[in-house]
């Protein structure tokens, strides 16, 4: 059904473009061009480009075509083609004939190649390179570096922090974590799929932390006004997570995660924006409350990974390990082709072209002003001169000659000399 609509819109675009070409009235041409542009805006929508569709309608079909129509009406140019000075067709098209033949032939060949020669455009599309980040949830680990076989991937992540996502080639990869304080190497082997994101977590108290790699979902969030949350247990014992809801009613609690073993990540779940009061309890004894996320704010379109960690309060031999929660928040990927995605790219990869574009627009503004200003000034000067000199002069000459001078003299420039005599 949608395909039928798409084909119909494509046909409408081509037909109205053709009508734009053959109609003699420039206003009709402009209106047909607007129809074509609207059709192309619809095609943008079907190509997962909603932002471009909006721009196409507002900027192209709106602003630019308004400008066109305004100039057509200003110049009264709507029927200028009909009033053409007759040029013999052989002179008009003499130069274009070989060029048009060559271009038409090229078009037929290309169309034939696309339609008959299989699908030259249909190639294997590579996915996005897998990405990985490193979270330091080990209080006593000290400085560490993460290496791939090709070199250093991430280094110098402080405790309670996460690195940015970095690209790692897809497939089986060996990751080496080098703890500099103890000069100890630990190796982990991961298989990374294209388009995936994962997290390497260094966790556990003591001098010998553990490492693990978990899949991490930062894909686009479809639900409105909500965030994605997952919980990782970096604590020594199995935990459970509850939502107490009411402080006073024990029966009102909701169990969000029944049991999460150490080193495990929970399923992701989606939470509406707002404050949460989730509480971590001991899985074996649910009345033993370990930590409460007090009024923790959930944002919009975030991907949140909450690590439940043990944090020593005093360093040294008689350290007291206190449970704590470490939320690591990143923004989820914006939807493909949406305004946020385009905005991100404009402000990161395409910043320089964007600046150049601004300069170009400024230059064109200046150009448009200068072009029309000079012409207007010349026209104004001419009009003023004629009004001041010729109107009274006609009266003066008429009174002196004795009969009405109906037509102004051919050369108004000579009039002042006559008056001087």
């Amino acid at each position, binding site marked *: 059904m949608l395909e039928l609509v*798409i084909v119909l819109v494509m046909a409408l*675009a081509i037909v109205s473009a053709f009508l734009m070409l053959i109609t003699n009235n420039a206003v009709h041409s402009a209106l047909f061009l607007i129809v074509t542009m609207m059709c192309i805006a619809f095609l943008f929508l079907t190509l997962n480009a909603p932002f471009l569709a909006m721009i196409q309608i507002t900027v192209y079909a709106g602003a630019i075509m308004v400008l066109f129509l305004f100039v057509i009406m200003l110049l009264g140019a709507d029927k200028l083609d009909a009033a053409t000075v007759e040029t013999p067709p052989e002179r008009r098209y003499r130069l274009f004939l070989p060029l048009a033949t060559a271009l038409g032939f090229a078009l037929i060949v290309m169309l034939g190649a696309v339609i008959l020669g299989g699908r030259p455009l249909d190639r294997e599309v590579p996915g996005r390179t897998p990405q990985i980040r490193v979270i330091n949830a080990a209080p006593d680990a000290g400085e560490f570096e993460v290496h791939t076989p090709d070199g250093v991937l991430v280094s110098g992540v402080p405790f309670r922090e996460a690195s940015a996502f970095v690209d790692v080639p897809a497939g089986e990869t060996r990751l080496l974590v080098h703890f500099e304080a103890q000069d100890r190497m630990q190796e982990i082997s991961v298989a990374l799929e294209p388009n995936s994101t994962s997290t390497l977590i260094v966790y556990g108290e003591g001098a010998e932390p553990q490492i693990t790699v978990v899949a991490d979902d930062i894909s686009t969030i479809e639900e409105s006004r909500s965030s994605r949350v997952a919980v990782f247990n970096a604590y020594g014992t199995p935990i459970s997570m509850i939502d107490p809801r009411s402080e006073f009613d024990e029966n009102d609690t909701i169990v969000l995660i029944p049991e999460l073993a150490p080193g495990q990540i929970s399923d992701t779940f989606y939470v509406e924006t707002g404050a949460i009061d989730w509480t971590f309890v001991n899985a074996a004894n649910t009345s033993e409350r370990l930590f409460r996320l007090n009024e923790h704010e959930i944002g919009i379109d975030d991907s949140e990974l909450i690590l439940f960690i043990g944090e020593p309060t005093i360093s040294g031999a008689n350290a007291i390990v206190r449970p704590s929660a470490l939320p690591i928040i990143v923004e989820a990927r914006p939807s493909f082709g949406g305004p946020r995605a385009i905005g991100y790219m404009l402000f990161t990869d395409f910043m320089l072209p964007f600046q150049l574009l601004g300069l170009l627009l400024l230059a064109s503004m200046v150009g448009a002003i200068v072009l029309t200003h000079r012409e207007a000034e010349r026209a104004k000067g001419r009009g003023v001169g004629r009004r001041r000199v010729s109107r009274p002069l006609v009266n003066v000459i008429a009174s002196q000659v004795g009969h009405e001078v109906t037509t102004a003299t051919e050369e108004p420039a000579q009039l002042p000399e006559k008056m001087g005599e």
Partner: protein
Amino acid sequence: MPVTIDTYVIVSMVLFSLGVMGVMLRRNAILVFMSVELMLNATNLALASFANQWGSESGHLFVFFIITVAAAEVAVGLALIVAIFRSKKSINIDELHQMEG
């Protein structure tokens, strides 16, 4: 016929060719200009379909840039047409041959 990227590219090619025809055949400078806009639109369509095929937003950025450049071009071009019309009282491109074109 299922709608694939080929369909979009073919439509884009046809629209582009119609634009070329307009530039070559029409005598009215404003209509020549509108044909150029049609060609730019056809290019945009092709770029958007390629971006969709490859799952990369760079194509969308190029479309965005083309639309902006087209707006600048229209502003300057129409100013030129108005200026020419004021001095020549015509925007028939056959009569504008002071550059020996």
